[in-house]
């Protein structure tokens, strides 16, 4: 009897172990990088967010966009200086008032052998804006003022009325409501990539779920995808410019922990790794350390429903009180830079060929004396010392920056009290959307390489104008630049945008820019040619490996 019981116990334990030890079949991520001896080169990249989707109309995150840019090609692509260059569109004509673009397509093929046609673009764009797709990036067709985009998005017009037509297999016509200076650059963005109707419809809801449910027209093919672990690409020999591709295989590994990722990098198993802020000091002098700027700009959003914040003197005092250089260089230390205005550096280039910030200059300034002076004025206006609540995200960076700003404001505006309010990101955003905040440390990432992506945020009625900033002068400048007569004259438009930023940040202190995100990385010195685009998708297409 005793033995029987023991037998039952051990059988149960054994069954539990055996039943669970069967593992699911997975596509193996291959062992670490470098060359395999046959001259075939490989690069292994660590990613700290997992690949969400390969369906380029559903993607919303950088990781997915990077992967899609490897396997798909759009009409244009961005060169290393953020300028659009021909890709599937080998040339284009633009009509006189800049509203009709005619693209002439190169002889490119999908990986199932069918040619890439103008209709693939028409179908792709129609699917992007279709309500049935519910793409979070559908708005981007309205951003370029594509004809009928708003009405089609609202379901008032059929998809066929969208301002994109295939004149023949190799000619695509795009009609806009107004000129769009940044159109060609934006066409390199995955939302604008083509989709092969016949293949997509045959796949049904399995489309893009595995590497076997996709066809490709870009420089790489996806070969493996284990969600939560890794995904891999190999060179597409049928790519129409296959001879320009150097690296044969690219593997991505999803590693959330930067310290483990760095150990793998040091072991030679990884070639590209992101560093966290606190690791920068340890590695900044090593070969391979790379600092890249990101488009994200962090600023203090001010809620104009709060009576104190309607006082311009108070806002200016706050503007002068924040020491942006110290925040970027000593608090964050991750390659972030002080924000000179609300438009980040390296975002956009003007019609004169000059970088935007080079033209607009430095608008923000750290000046404790002026801060004190304006705060005294504000105190006189308001008749009391000011207490404000600073809302920020419960991340390491958010906390350190908020605490430093609190210190700045309380020191440079003697008498001012700042209370800190830390919330998770989703909560912070909801509070801002509901107007339940006073001052919030908030960020915006550009949707396209033009100042308008930031300046539109502060227009009356804009859905992201959480603080309800309202200025007639600003409104007039931006609307004239984007919708008025000046929209047709690139230089005039540019000048107006520069002026508008000066009104918003300089004259009104309607928003207080703080810093632009940087990203410190380690890249194996043998790997070159990764192109970082602050307002677009980072490109690993033109990498080389020595």
């Amino acid at each position: 009897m005793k033995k029987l019981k023991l037998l039952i116990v051990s059988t149960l334990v054994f069954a539990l172990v055996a039943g669970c030890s069967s593992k699911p079949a997975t596509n193996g991520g291959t062992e670490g990088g470098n060359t395999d001896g046959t001259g075939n080169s490989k690069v292994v990249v660590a990613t700290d967010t997992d690949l969400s989707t390969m369906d380029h109309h559903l993607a919303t995150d950088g990781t997915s966009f990077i992967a899609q840019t490897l396997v798909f090609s759009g009409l244009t692509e961005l060169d290393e200086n953020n300028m659009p260059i021909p890709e599937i569109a080998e040339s284009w004509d633009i009509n006189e008032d800049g509203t009709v673009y005619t693209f002439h397509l190169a002889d490119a093929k999908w990986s199932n052998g069918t040619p890439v046609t103008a209709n693939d673009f028409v179908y792709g764009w129609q699917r992007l804006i279709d309500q049935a797709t519910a793409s979070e990036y559908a708005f981007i067709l309205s951003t370029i003022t594509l004809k009928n985009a708003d009405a089609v998005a609202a379901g008032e017009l059929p998809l066929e009325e969208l301002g994109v037509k295939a004149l023949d297999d190799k000619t695509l016509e795009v009609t806009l409501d107004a000129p769009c200076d940044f159109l060609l650059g934006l066409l390199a963005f995955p939302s604008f990539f083509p989709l092969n109707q016949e293949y997509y419809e045959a796949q049904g809801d399995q489309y893009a779920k595995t590497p076997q449910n996709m066809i490709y027209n870009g420089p790489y093919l996806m070969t493996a995808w284990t969600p939560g672990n890794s995904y891999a690409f190999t060179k597409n020999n049928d790519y129409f410019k296959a001879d320009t591709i150097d690296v044969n295989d690219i593997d991505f590994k999803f590693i959330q922990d930067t310290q483990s990722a760095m150990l793998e990098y040091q072991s030679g198993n990884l070639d590209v790794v992101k560093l966290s802020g606190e690791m920068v000091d340890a590695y900044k002098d090593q070969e391979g350390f790379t600092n890249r700027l990101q488009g994200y700009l962090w600023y203090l959003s001010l809620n104009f429903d709060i009576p104190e914040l309607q006082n311009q003197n108070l806002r200016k005092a706050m503007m002068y009180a924040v020491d942006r250089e110290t925040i970027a260089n000593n608090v964050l230390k991750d390659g972030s830079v002080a924000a000179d205005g609300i438009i980040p550096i390296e975002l956009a280039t003007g019609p004169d060929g000059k970088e935007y910030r080079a033209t607009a200059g430095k608008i923000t300034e750290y000046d404790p004396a002026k801060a004190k002076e304006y705060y005294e004025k504000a105190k006189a206006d308001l008749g009391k010392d000011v207490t404000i609540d600073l809302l920020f995200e419960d991340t390491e960076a958010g906390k350190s920056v908020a605490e430093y700003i609190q210190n700045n404001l309380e020191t440079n505006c003697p008498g001012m009290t700042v209370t800190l309010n830390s919330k998770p990101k989703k909560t912070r955003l909801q509070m801002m959307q509901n107007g339940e905040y006073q001052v919030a440390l908030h960020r915006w990432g550009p949707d396209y390489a033009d100042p308008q992506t930031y300046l539109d945020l502060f227009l009356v009625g804009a859905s992201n104008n959480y603080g309800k900033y309202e200025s007639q002068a600003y409104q007039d400048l931006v609307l004239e630049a984007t919708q008025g007569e000046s929209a047709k004259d690139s230089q005039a438009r540019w000048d107006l945008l520069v002026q508008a930023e000066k009104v918003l940040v300089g004259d009104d202190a309607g928003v207080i820019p703080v810093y632009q995100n940087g990203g410190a990385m380690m890249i194996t010195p043998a790997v070159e040619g990764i192109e970082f685009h602050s307002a677009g998708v980072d490109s690993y297409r033109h990498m080389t490996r020595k």
Partner: protein
Amino acid sequence: MSKYILKRILISLATLFVILFVLFLMLEFMPGSPFNDEKLTEAQRILLNAKYGLDQPFFVRFFNYAGNMLKGDFGVSYVINKNFAVTSMVVDRFFVTIRIGLQAMILGSIVGLVLGIIAAIKHNTWVDTLCSVISIIGVSVPSYVFALALAYYVGFKMGLFPILYNPAIPEQSSVLPTIALSLFTIANVARFTRSEMIDVLGSDYVQLAQSKGIKEWKLIIKHALRNTLIPIITVMGPLLVGLLTGSMVVEKIFGIPGLGSLMVLAIQNNDYNVVIACAFIYSALYIFTMLIVDILYGVIDPRIRVAKKGA
């Protein structure tokens, strides 16, 4: 006995249903949406909510979800692997988590038992002290510290095992996470074994056996260990669940595509269906393990079986 088990199973099912309801209710109050709150306009948010049925009233969604769940359908992911069936996402990761959890459990109990027995036999000597120190360290050192130390020294410096989990070679690449996870179990099992063993060794029947001249090792294995095991099996259940649910940090450090790290990601991203599926599976595991422990307890110790019959 079987009536007792049946009753326990029914109670377990009812508990799971309540858990599912509470989970649903908690997600209802979670701020934000699964979608890109930073950029979306109100019109798009309405469109997305309608597409995924999130615009339906609470009770409609709850009963739809519960109904689909009975068919094995946990809905789709909104963020992490967009539009993927949550069931397949969770099943893949479940086996990885279970594998590493069980490996850690087995390693932890064996090492813990041996340490505990040695400490008990060498009661009040330096060996005992050493075992106690190991136990205290095991209980008090957070698993991520130990995991990072392992990754650094064993994985990186010595290069003995891969640091990152690789589904192609699960045996080698799960060694480090298994050891990292087992530390807590080793410490706990060793402590319990030691104190139980000391009690048992002092009991009358062991002293009788001793006076009969039975060899020491035979005495330990045959007479003392069996009685020591009873209380230990009770702590093993919660320990196993602790291993499965507490592996999030270890999963993160070793890059393991497991359930724990998936749940954390899902919560951060408001990926509702994934949160519910993970939390539900964890709850089910917990309840299932407790059930098994209760049954095993009855099998091993006749006194309990008799008492329950009477009840």
